[in-house]
């Protein structure tokens, strides 16, 4: 029996990949989401239909794209549409099953900040901004968030709501007219959080092997609730790791 070793980032990416089911339509952001989606397509979800906001529909890149507008996406896509079309004809009507997002900050209700740390008019850190995220968070049937966990990133209330998660709790998405279900999983290097079905507050529902619940709570800026039914993330398989490392060039 061989011992498989893996990093925290690797189990995060693999766990995110496993959130995708075969033949789903997935709106993919660059970075961790793109890596996870490409791992999924090469393992259990060969029919995953990836959409990048640059307008490539159904791309099957043979390497990890370097940006959301990489040439390999256009070359391998079922079709390439304009940016207005990808947002208006594909995202907005709710045709996309899952949106994959990253974040600089996320809060108790899975609201997402990618705009500023600190005050908007005198920011401590100026972040890139919204990009496609507000409408991905609004209109995809569900959203998966991938990000590393720390008290800096997991805060009671985000400094700026770039993309709405579950607002201030139950009924907020409906009140705001957001058609998708919002963030249904937040996957980090420590574990997995999901919104409580009633309170919509993020609850720790899974930890990765070797991670202590106390460590996850310590890396969270609010009093993180823990599911009674806490799962232990299955370890990455040899195949998943091989695929991931080939993609990222860390084999």
């Amino acid at each position, binding site marked *: 029996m061989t011992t498989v070793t893996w990093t925290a980032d690797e189990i995060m990416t693999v766990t995110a990949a496993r959130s995708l089911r075969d033949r789903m339509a997935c709106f993919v952001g*660059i*970075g961790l989401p793109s890596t996870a989606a490409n791992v999924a397509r090469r393992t259990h979800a060969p029919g995953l239909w990836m959409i990048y*906001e*640059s*307008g*490539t529909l159904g791309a099957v890149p043979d390497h990890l794209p*370097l*940006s*959301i*507008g*990489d*040439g390999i*996406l*256009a070359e391998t896509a079922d079709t*390439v549409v*304009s*940016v*207005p079309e990808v*947002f*208006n004809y594909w*995202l*907005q009507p709710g045709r996309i099953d899952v949106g994959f997002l990253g974040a600089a900050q996320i809060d108790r209700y899975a609201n997402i900040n990618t*705009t500023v740390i600190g005050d*908007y008019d*005198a*920011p401590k850190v*100026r*972040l*890139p*901004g*919204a*990009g*496609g*995220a*507000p*409408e991905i968070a*609004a*209109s995809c049937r569900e959203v998966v968030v991938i990000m590393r966990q720390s008290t800096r990133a997991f805060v009671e209330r985000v400094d*700026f*709501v*770039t*993309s*709405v998660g579950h*607002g201030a709790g139950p009924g*907020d*998405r409906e009140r*705001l*007219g*957001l*058609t998708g279900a919002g963030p249904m999983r937040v996957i980090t290097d420590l574990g997995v959080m999901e919104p409580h079905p009633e309170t919509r507050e993020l609850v720790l529902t899974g930890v990765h092997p070797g991670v202590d619940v106390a460590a996850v709570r310590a890396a969270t800026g609010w009093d993180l609730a823990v599911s009674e039914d806490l799962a232990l993330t299955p370890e990455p398989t040899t195949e998943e790791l091989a695929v991931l490392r080939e993609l990222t060039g860390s084999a």
Partner: protein
Amino acid sequence: MIVPLDEAVRELVHDGDTVALEGFTHLIPVAAGHEIIRQGRRGLTLVRMTPDIVYDQLIGAGCAAKLVFSWGGNPGVGSLHRFRDAVTSSWPVPLEIEEHSHAGMANRYVAGASGLPFAVLRGYSGTDLVAHNPHIKSITCPFTGQELAAVPALNPDVTIVHAQRADTDGNVQLWGITGIQKEAALAAERVLVTVEEVVDTLDPVPGQVILPARVVTAVSPVPGGAAPSYAHGYYERDNDAYKAWDAIGRDRAAFTAWLEELAGEAPRTRPQPAGRAL
């Protein structure tokens, strides 16, 4: 119609103009941006969905008074340090910002291209963007009573795009990821297109976008004019240049040296060596 880049920028881009340089990762009109820096334009309202290093350069050079955008970063690398420095420390000049989402920006261009004063979308709802941007309003569907977002049309004084080819009449052809270029061009008062080459006839290519000559003000042949971004079918993205920018952009002195070097370059000879040919 076919004019050298320095002449085209001199005639079409004026101090205080609203200028959009578009190209979604692909076909970014970098050489045209450099020429604007070289000619020392000031007080521009720069518009772009995804300001990246050429906008960092324009901002660092002090060309811009305002930036209208939806995502600003060095893609795959990190932050835009000149942009951050302008926003947080007003260096070299203060920079006003107006930010949207991609969907909002795309629809602003669509409204501009369509001769409509505004566009409607499902967007922004519940976000803090609304409170910080007076250009996001709500509108009620007259049939269903649903509340939706409204954004005003974007009509740049000048839109600049880079394309693979133009013919001698000024018809422009671009393909691969075509992004928002068609709408950005159709929304503008004046349109400058830099191209890899001018040809006699535009052989049709699958996925092409054609900008008919009558919506194009000037075409400037600038081979390699999109580098370090890429031109589908011509050259690849120079990722090292994106990474190298991080160190230059991070430091005011290094940036100033870069700027001086740019100023010393002849405007039309520089672009040729750029780009890694396919």
